[in-house]
């Protein structure tokens, strides 16, 4: 039962120990960070047994009960997010053991990496508004510093834009938390939900609007997306993999799920807002990604498009809508991390990521092209890889709720996605090779990518009732649960 605090504690311990003892030794700090992340994965797997026996775990810090103290909670919905997060993080850490060798002060990278991971884990286990805000800030500030890590010219400008826009988002969330404290006098989510049914409707609309704007700025939905292409395309590759695969979903999409389905249950109109934002970012991301010069910028715009799919599915609602949102989150995290690690492997050997300078990678680096192709086909929605299943479920959900136009737009955007990925494959991987003496990548860079691609392949094929049973419980939380029920016990 006290296993619930272990993810946060282990990553904080790793950050502080590396800072104190091993700041000068690059090899030891990288291996220490990797071993702490594997320990966290083991503790989360052990935690899963408790969650599926008892339904949910609620833990009071220091022994103080709910209206007075701070509480932590893990239920099947947040367990799905925890498992995906802690599965991808050791893989990224393994990749960066050999990628970060060319940076001079790479032990600082592992300190910041551990802090980002601690913050992301903390958001998923907390049941208190201000707790969510503090962990959000820990991970956000560490990611602002990580984007500017290489100190090249363009990275500094991208980090400046990202910092200012991220600060505005955090300020909106903080003002909303202040309004909640002023009106109801409590900061606990369960307590607020039971008191909020008696409040004035206009005040609740204002708080809901501030929350959606703040979290949509962290998720990069359509009118709030301006920081994403620069920050994700110019950061070092493991940092891009964390940001685009995990960060925008856990700091932005998970709180939006909680707000729309569990907390503000008296406003069914909030689903139309999510549908509108999701539709706009889907179309915009796909159209902007067609004609880019740089590989990583294409992947960044494609992230905006796929996050639009998730928001659209959340807005449609019903059993199939919620199932599609969760499944699309899981498969897209795996695929997008694989794609960004792949571009890091290409950059490690060639030194550049512009399309015009890379030709004919298939002859010299067969394993890199194989994993890259699997990643691209997976995001585009080709069977039997992962995202095909989630896109089919989203289209079924749209048809069942009589939104035929939206289903048609989903299919068109999917075809456009396949189009620009095929263009990338034709130009980079399968073209004629020029004179170059580049060899295949080493073991430490290849094995994480191979592991991820095997997992995507298998999880697409073994889409069997067993996995569906576990996700079933998570979807039931989104449909039927509201925090009101905790206070009744």
């Amino acid at each position, binding site marked *: 039962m006290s296993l619930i605090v272990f993810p946060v504690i282990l990553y904080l311990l790793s950050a502080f120990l590396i800072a104190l003892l091993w700041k000068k030794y690059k090899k030891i700090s990288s291996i220490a960070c990797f071993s702490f992340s594997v320990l966290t994965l083991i503790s989360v797997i052990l935690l899963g047994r408790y969650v599926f026996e008892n339904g949910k775990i609620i833990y009071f810090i220091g022994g103080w009960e709910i209206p007075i103290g701070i509480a932590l909670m893990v239920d099947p919905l947040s367990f799905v997010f925890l498992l995906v997060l802690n599965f991808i993080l050791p893989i990224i850490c393994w990749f960066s053991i050999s990628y970060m060798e060319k940076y001079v002060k790479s032990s600082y990278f592992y300190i910041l990496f551990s802090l980002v991971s601690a913050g992301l884990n903390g958001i998923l286990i907390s049941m208190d508004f201000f707790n969510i805000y503090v962990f959000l800030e820990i991970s956000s*500030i560490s990611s*602002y510093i990580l984007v500017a890590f290489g100190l090249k010219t363009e990275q500094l*400008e991208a980090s*400046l834009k990202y910092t200012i826009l991220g*600060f505005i988002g955090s300020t909106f969330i903080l*003002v909303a938390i*202040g309004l909640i404290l002023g009106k109801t006098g409590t900061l606990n989510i369960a307590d607020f939900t039971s008191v909020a049914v008696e409040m004035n409707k206009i005040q609740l609309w204002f708080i809901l609007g501030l929350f959606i704007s703040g979290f949509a700025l962290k998720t990069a939905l359509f009118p709030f997306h301006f920081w994403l292409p620069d920050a994700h395309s110019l950061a070092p590759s493991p940092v891009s993999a964390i940001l685009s695969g995990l960060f925008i979903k856990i700091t932005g999409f998970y709180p939006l799920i909680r707000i729309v389905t569990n907390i503000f249950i008296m406003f069914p109109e909030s689903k139309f807002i999510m549908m509108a934002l999701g539709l706009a970012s889907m179309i915009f991301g796909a159209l902007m990604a067609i004609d*880019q010069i740089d590989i990583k910028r294409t992947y960044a715009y494609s992230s905006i498009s796929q996050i639009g799919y998730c928001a659209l599915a959340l807005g449609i609602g019903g059993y199939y809508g919620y199932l599609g949102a969760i499944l699309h989150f899981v498969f897209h995290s795996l695929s997008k991390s694989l794609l960004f690690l792949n571009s890091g492997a290409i950059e490690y050997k060639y030194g550049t990521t512009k399309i015009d300078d890379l030709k004919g990678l298939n002859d010299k680096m067969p394993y890199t092209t194989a994993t890259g192709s699997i990643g691209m086909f997976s995001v585009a929605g080709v069977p039997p890889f992962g995202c095909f299943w989630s896109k089919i479920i989203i289209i079924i959900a749209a048809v069942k709720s009589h939104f035929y136009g939206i289903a048609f737009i989903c299919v068109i955007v999917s075809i456009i996605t396949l189009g620009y990925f095929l263009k990338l494959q034709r130009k980079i991987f399968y073209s004629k090779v020029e004179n170059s003496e580049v060899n295949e990548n080493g073991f430490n860079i290849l094995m994480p990518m191979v592991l991820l691609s095997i997992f995507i392949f298998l999880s697409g094929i073994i889409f069997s009732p067993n996995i569906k049973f576990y996700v079933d419980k998570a979807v039931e939380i989104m449909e039927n649960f509201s925090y009101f029920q905790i206070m009744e016990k």
Partner: protein
Amino acid sequence: MIVYIAISIMFFVGIYGMMVKKNIIKMIIGVNIIGYAVNLFFIVIGYKNGGIPPILISGMGIKEFVEKAVNPLPQALVLTSIVIDLSIICFLASLSIRIYEKYGTFDLEKIRRLKG
């Protein structure tokens, strides 16, 4: 009531400084002012008319203390928020030094090499 109007005027002054000014240093000062306005808003929420500071002096009963004292919970939240804003300003200041080294200017209209 007047305090809330003053807080919103300070917030808009900070937004004006952040959006309109062309120097990086003036933009950072705008960001700072927004942080001050939000912290002040938090403290004003917990105020009670004619209240005493929430410190228990020996010789005062508990019931009378709870009725008269100002709410201490927002004050603890403001401490955390001040430290978070401090670290963002510190990072932005050192970032602007590095930008001056690479771009040669503090003018925001010339720091625009990324397009599309």
